[in-house]
C-alpha cells in the first residue's frame, strides 16, 4: 500500500522531481567547476533575490496560460507601472513607499482589465490583443516619462528599501515571492475560482454549460496578471534603481519560458504552482551559474534556449510514455 502510494506520488510529480534533479546536477557541476564559488551564502542569496521578480510574474502568467491564453504585454505593464510609480515619488518626496506600491498595482490592474476585456468580451485572440496592448503600454511609458529616466538619486532610501531590505534575514523580494506562491497555491488548488480557471482552460464550452461565467473568469485571470505585473514592475525599478522607457523589454518571454519549463501546457488546462516555481528557479540558476564558470555571454542565451527546447522535448516524451503505459494496462 505504502509502496503504491509512493509510486503514485512519483508518477504524479515526475516533472517536478526531474526538474529538481537537473538543478542539483547543475549546482554541483558549477560548484566543482568554479572552485567552490557557487555554494556561498552570498551567491545563494543573490540567486534567490535575482529570481524573485521573475518567479512572482510566473504565477500570474501561469493563470493566464491555464485559461489557454497568453499575455505578451506584461513587460510593458511593468515599465508603465514602474514609471508612473516613481514619477509620483519624484514629485512628492515624502510620500510613503506603500502608497507608491499601491499606485503601481492599480496601474497594473487597469492594464490587465483592458487586456481581459479585449480577450473575453471582444473575443480577440490573446496573443494579438496583448501584442497590441504591449505597444500601447510601452508607448504610454514614453509619454509619461517624456523620454527621460527616473534614477536612483530621485528615489529616497525608504523606497529603495523595498528591494534591498530584509525580513528575518531574508531579502524582502524573496519573502514577497514566497508569500505570493503560498497565496497562488491556495487560490488555484483550494478556491472555487481557481477550480473554475482550470475548468475554463480545459473546455470553455463544458465550463459554460456547467454554469460557470467563463467570460468573467477569463477577465479575472488577465486582471490578476495585470496586478502582479504592476507590482513586479515597481519591484523591478526599485531593485535596479532606474525607471525608463526600456524597462523590462522582452521580459515576458523569460516569464513564459519559466512557465513552460515548469510544465504549464500552452494549450491550456494544466499547470502546477510548484512546477512554475521550479521553472523560474531553473532559469534563475542558469543566469547565476553560467557567469560563474565563465561561459561567454554570447553562449548564455543559446544555452538557455537549448535547455527550454530539451525540457519541452522530454515533457512530450514523458507524456507519450504515460499514455503508452495506460494503453498497455488495458490488456488488449
Amino acid at each position, binding site marked *: 500500500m505504502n509502496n503504491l502510494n509512493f509510486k503514485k506520488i512519483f508518477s504524479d510529480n515526475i516533472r517536478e522531481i526531474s526538474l529538481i534533479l537537473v538543478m542539483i546536477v547543475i549546482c554541483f557541476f558549477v560548484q566543482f567547476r568554479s572552485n567552490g564559488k557557487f555554494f556561498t551564502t552570498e551567491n545563494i542569496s543573490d540567486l534567490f533575490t535575482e529570481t524573485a521578480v521573475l518567479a512572482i510574474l510566473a504565477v500570474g502568467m501561469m493563470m493566464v496560460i491555464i485559461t489557454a491564453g497568453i499575455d505578451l504585454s506584461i513587460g510593458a505593464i511593468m515599465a508603465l507601472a514602474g514609471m508612473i510609480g516613481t514619477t509620483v515619488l519624484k514629485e512628492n518626496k515624502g510620500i510613503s513607499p506603500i502608497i507608491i506600491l499601491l499606485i503601481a498595482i492599480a496601474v497594473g490592474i487597469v492594464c490587465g482589465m483592458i487586456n481581459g476585456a479585449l480577450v473575453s468580451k471582444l473575443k480577440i485572440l490573446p496573443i494579438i490583443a496583448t501584442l497590441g496592448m504591449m505597444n500601447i503600454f510601452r508607448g504610454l511609458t514614453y509619454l509619461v516619462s517624456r523620454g527621460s529616466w527616473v534614477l536612483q538619486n530621485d528615489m529616497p532610501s525608504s523606497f529603495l528599501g523595498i528591494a534591498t531590505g530584509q525580513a528575518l534575514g531574508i531579502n524582502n523580494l524573496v519573502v514577497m515571492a514566497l508569500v505570493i506562491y503560498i497565496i497562488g497555491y*491556495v487560490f488555484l488548488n*483550494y*478556491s*472555487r*475560482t481557481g*477550480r*473554475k480557471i482550470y*475548468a475554463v482552460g*480545459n*473546455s470553455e*464550452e*463544458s*465550463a*459554460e*454549460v*456547467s*454554469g*460557470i*461565467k467563463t467570460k468573467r473568469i477569463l477577465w479575472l485571470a488577465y486582471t490578476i496578471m495585470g496586478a502582479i505585473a504592476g507590482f513586479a514592475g515597481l519591484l523591478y525599478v526599485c531593485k535596479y534603481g532606474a525607471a525608463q522607457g526600456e524597462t523590462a523589454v522582452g521580459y515576458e518571454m523569460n516569464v513564459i519560458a519559466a512557465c513552460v519549463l515548469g510544465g504549464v501546457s500552452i494549450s491550456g*488546462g*494544466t499547470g502546477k504552482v510548484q512546477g512554475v516555481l521550479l521553472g523560474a528557479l531553473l532559469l534563475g540558476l542558469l543566469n547565476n551559474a553560467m557567469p560563474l564558470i565563465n561561459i561567454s555571454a554570447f553562449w548564455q542565451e543559446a544555452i538557455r534556449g537549448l535547455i527550454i527546447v530539451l525540457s519541452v522535448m522530454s515533457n512530450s516524451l514523458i507524456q507519450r510514455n504515460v499514455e503508452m503505459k*495506460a494503453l498497455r494496462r488495458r490488456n488488449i
Partner: protein
Amino acid sequence: MAEDYILQLKGITKIFPGVKALDNVQFELKKGEIHALMGENGAGKSTFIKVITGVHAPEEGEIVLRGKKVVFKNPQDAQKESIAAIYQHGTVYNQLSVTENIYIGHEKLYKVGMINWGQMHKDAEALLRSLGSDIDPRSSMGNLTIAEQQIVEIAKAISTGARIIIMDEPTAALSKRECEELYRITEQLRDEGCSIIFISHRFEDMYRLASRVTVFRDSQYIGTWGVNDISNEVLISKMVGREITEIYPKQKIEFGDEIFKIEGFSKTGYYKDVTFSVRQGEILAMTGLVGAGRTEVCHGIFGIEKIDEGQIYLEGKPLKVKCPLDAMNAGIGYLPEDRHKQGLILDWGIGDNITLSTLEMFSKNTILNRKAERQRSKELAEKVKTKALSVFDKVSKLSGGNQQKVVVAKVLNLDLKVIILDEPTKGVDVGAKAQIYDIMSQLAASGYGVIMISSEMPEVLGMADRIVVMKEGRVSKIFDDAKNVTQEQILEAAMNI
C-alpha cells in the same frame, strides 16, 4: 441481367466497436437511374455511402462495379473508379474561390508544374454554365448560398469524371425554388448517363426523381421497390416496422400542475414559433429527424445560445435566461447531447466533474471543502452506479455509458424542477441504458418535469407521456397521449410527405 447494373453491393457488413453499423446489406444500382435510399436516423445510410466511397472498408461482403469485383482501400480508389459523393454538410472550403473548390486535388497545371489559373477559371465557368448555373467561378465559396454550394459540389464531382454520384440529403436545407433547380440538374446528369443514389427524407424528392427506392432499417436491408409500386403507408411501415421488445421501467404517476412552458420560441435559421409545456411528473419526448432543431431549442431554453423571440414560464412565472447559470439557478438542468464537448472535462477525475456545477455547495468564502466534495461525489457516483475504481479516475478512460452516468450525477446534484435530457442514451451500452431509464422514471416520480430529446423511436414510445414532433424547425405535431401513438404516426409527422 447483370450487365444492367453498374454497381452492386452484396452482403456488406461493417462493424464499429460495439455496434454493427451495417448488417449483411445489399444494394443494386442500374446504369442511368436515380435510386432513392431511405431510412430513419441511424439506419446505416451514411455508413453505407462511406463504404461505397472507400472511406470505410467493410468487414464482409463485396462490391461489384461494372461486373467486376473491386476493393477500395481509400477514397482515392473510389474516385479513380469515377464514384463521387456530395455530402449534406459538404467538404466546402469557404475561404477559397469556386474554381479552387471544384479543382481541389486535381488542379490543372502548366508543364512546369505551376497552376494554370486562366484555364481553370475558364473550365470551371464552362462546367457551371453546362449545369445551367450563372455562378461566378472567381467568387469566394463562403459567399454562396447552400444551394449554390451544392451545385459547385456537383460540378466538382463531374470534373473528376464521376459517373456514379451519391447525394446525401441535398434538399434538406433548400427552398422550394432551389429544390426545383437541383431536380433539373439531377435529371440532366441522369440523361447524360450518370447513375445517381439520392438520399432524402422528403417523399417529394423520391416521387419527383427516383425510379426505384431502397429502404434500410436498423442497419439492415429491408427491400427495394419501384417508386410507383409502393404506397406511402407501406413505405413508412417498412422504415419503422420494428417490434418493441425492450421493457421500459415506466411508473404510473399522477401528473401535477404545469411546471414548465415555452411560448413562441424563435431563432432565425434554426427554429420558429415553438411552444410546448410539461407537467410535474411528466416525461415529454421531443423527437424528429436530425436537424429538425430540437437540440437548438433546448440550447435556447438553457441559455447556451441566444433566442430571437420567445418566453419561458417556470411554475407559471415568466423567466429570463441569459446564460446557463440563470437556468440552473431557476431550477432547470440540461444533460447535453455532446457529453465530450459540453458535459465533461475529460482530463479531470470523476469527482471533480460531478461537482463542477455546484462548487458553491462545498465552499465557504470561496475556499473549497475538498473532503465534503469528495464525499458527495462518491455518493452520487454510487447512486448512478458508475463503474470505476475511485472518484479520482479520469473520465476520459471510462466507457461511454459510464461517462454519461457521470454527467447525470453532475446534473442530479443541482436543485432542479425541470430536467432536459438531450439524447441521454446516445452511444451508451444496453446496461447503462436501462439504468438511465430507471433514473428518468425516478425523477418523474419525484415530481420533476422531464424533457427528453430522442431520435430513438422505441425509447420515445416506451418512456414518454407526451410527444412533441419537430420538423424543419417547427413543431409539427404534439401527441398528448403517448400510449395510443404508433411509430408510423410519429414518422409521418417528422417527414415531408
